[in-house]
């Protein structure tokens, strides 16, 4: 942790993410400004009163971008919270139980890995209908396989450890061993992978938002804001520009922070 605090990469990441996290925190207080339309103040350029300008319904783009942080970051963490533990649990179970269960689970993982994430999410979101929760579900369902693979590999290594044998002697079931004793061992590497994955998740969710499959209007969400800003791209590039920059900041911030966390937590990966 201390190492992390002095790492310039981590600092740069934190610097990029700070305004977004701030936005997510104060977002609920901005809901009023972000949602109320002023039809007489449409498409005002950035300047006094509106630092980022206003959008096609006269809403303040700065307020919307800040408020949108909640939706996007929330979505990213929701996906992370769904996909990573799911992958971990499945991987641990597959690794501990072995046999047909393992084959079945790992084949499923292979298959899920074979289709690009956005495509499957797109098909799923199309079937489920648009919405923030559905988008999260769609991305999560496509994000878990790498975690499962990693967890399984670690489980195979840990299965022979003494304390596992002890637990087994005490009469614990294999399922219990997998979930209670083995899975926690995989948490740290899961977190490392997660930190590297977050920027991809943010981009995928923003992409779904851009295609109209994420948060529904008038809720502010960055991808959707870029999509609506597209209509006024030529006259008001700021409407699509700033939310896009926010996505870029989030992507960069998570990438940098992820790199730093990996370097700090994973001793095998020497810094380069």
């Amino acid at each position, binding site marked *: 942790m201390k190492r992390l605090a002095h790492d310039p990469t981590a600092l740069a990441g934190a610097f990029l993410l700070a305004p977004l996290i701030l936005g997510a925190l104060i977002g609920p207080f901005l809901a009023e400004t972000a949602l109320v339309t002023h039809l007489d103040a449409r498409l005002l350029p950035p300047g006094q009163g509106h630092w980022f300008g206003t959008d096609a319904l006269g809403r303040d783009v700065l307020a919307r971008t800040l408020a949108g942080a909640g939706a996007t970051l929330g979505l990213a963490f929701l996906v992370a919270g769904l996909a990573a533990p799911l992958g971990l649990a499945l991987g641990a179970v597959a690794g501990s139980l072995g046999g047909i269960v393992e084959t079945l689970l790992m084949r499923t993982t292979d298959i899920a890995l074979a*289709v690009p994430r956005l495509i499957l999410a797109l*098909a799923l979101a199309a*079937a489920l209908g648009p919405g923030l929760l559905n988008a999260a579900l769609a991305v999560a369902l496509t994000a878990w396989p790498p975690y499962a693979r990693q967890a399984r590999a670690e489980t195979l290594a840990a299965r022979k450890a003494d304390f596992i044998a002890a637990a087994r002697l005490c009469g614990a079931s294999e399922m219990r061993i997998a979930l209670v004793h083995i899975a926690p061992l995989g948490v740290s590497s899961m977190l490392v992978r997660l930190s590297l994955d977050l920027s991809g998740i943010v981009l995928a969710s923003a992409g779904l938002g851009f295609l109209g499959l994420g948060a529904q209007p008038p809720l502010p969400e960055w991808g959707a804001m870029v999509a609506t800003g597209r209509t006024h791209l030529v006259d008001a590039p700021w409407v*699509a520009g700033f939310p896009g920059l926010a*996505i870029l900041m989030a*992507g960069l911030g998570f990438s*940098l922070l992820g790199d730093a966390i990996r370097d700090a937590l994973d001793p095998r990966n020497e810094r380069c």
Partner: protein
Amino acid sequence: MRSLLTLPLTLLALLACTFAFTKIAPIDPVLAVVGDRASEAARIQARKDLGLDRPWPIQFLWHVERTVTGDLGLSTSTGHAVLDDLAQVFPATIELALAATLIGLVLGLPLGIIGAYWRGSWPDHLARLIALLGHSVPVFWLGLMALYLFYALLGWAPGPGRLNFYLEGLVPTVSGFILLDSLLAGRLDVAGDALAHLVLPALTLGLFSTALFARTSRALMLDALGQDFILTARAKGLSEWNVVLGHALKSCAAPMVTTLALALGSLLEGSVLTETVFSWPGLGAYMTGALMAADMAAILGGTLLIGLVVSLLNLGADFLQRKLDPRTAS
């Protein structure tokens, strides 16, 4: 060998997924066929024709049978068979993905090698920055900004699309790749127009592949340059040029092939958003168009095609890696 067996399994699972998707979609498939103003009798008949009155396991078997025989259903947004549509749009996507891969190889590979060789120097930092950007920039936004800047403001690039539309149909379709077809037909004006239209979307998508290649080749080269055989080669008095490009780079060939296959897969994914932005008439634009029209047959057909292509790419990469890498050859 095992991966060869996985392929049909993967496809079957994909089919199951896509079938499940059609079942949970909140859209009346009959409406898509007969329209809003048809009579009730016509609707009931259409329901029967689609087999929607049968139990769903039978519907699924039909679904598999139809897919295997190449019948992916009728796209409700284009009115054509999905398979015909895919055959028409997929070459455009390949064209774009190949162009982006080419850009990635031309820019990314040297960046990675230079970065690894002069580690910590400014080209290295540049390489890392580009890799970082390519990894974190939302491609749909980048495309929009590029279109705004180079078409709307500066007028350097032609507008969205793959060709000026009135030039469509002037060149007989041989391969589906407009650039190739127009050169074959000797229409330089059409070829020039097609090339000009290709530049902006290819560069947008190319940033991603550049980043990927720079990142991978840098890591691989760093690893290779630290190996014993490089020391040996240097000790033998070979030129640096020879050591780096001849020995170190050669040892990276096998993993690079895997990266290439992965990149092509990811580019297919990236093309969904890029094509939407540039109205590039490929698979991505087709699928997002279908998405807006809730055209499930088209979406699922596209998903299947991409799944198939990516699986094949993985298989090919596996195979090539085995061939190229002496360690796994045995």
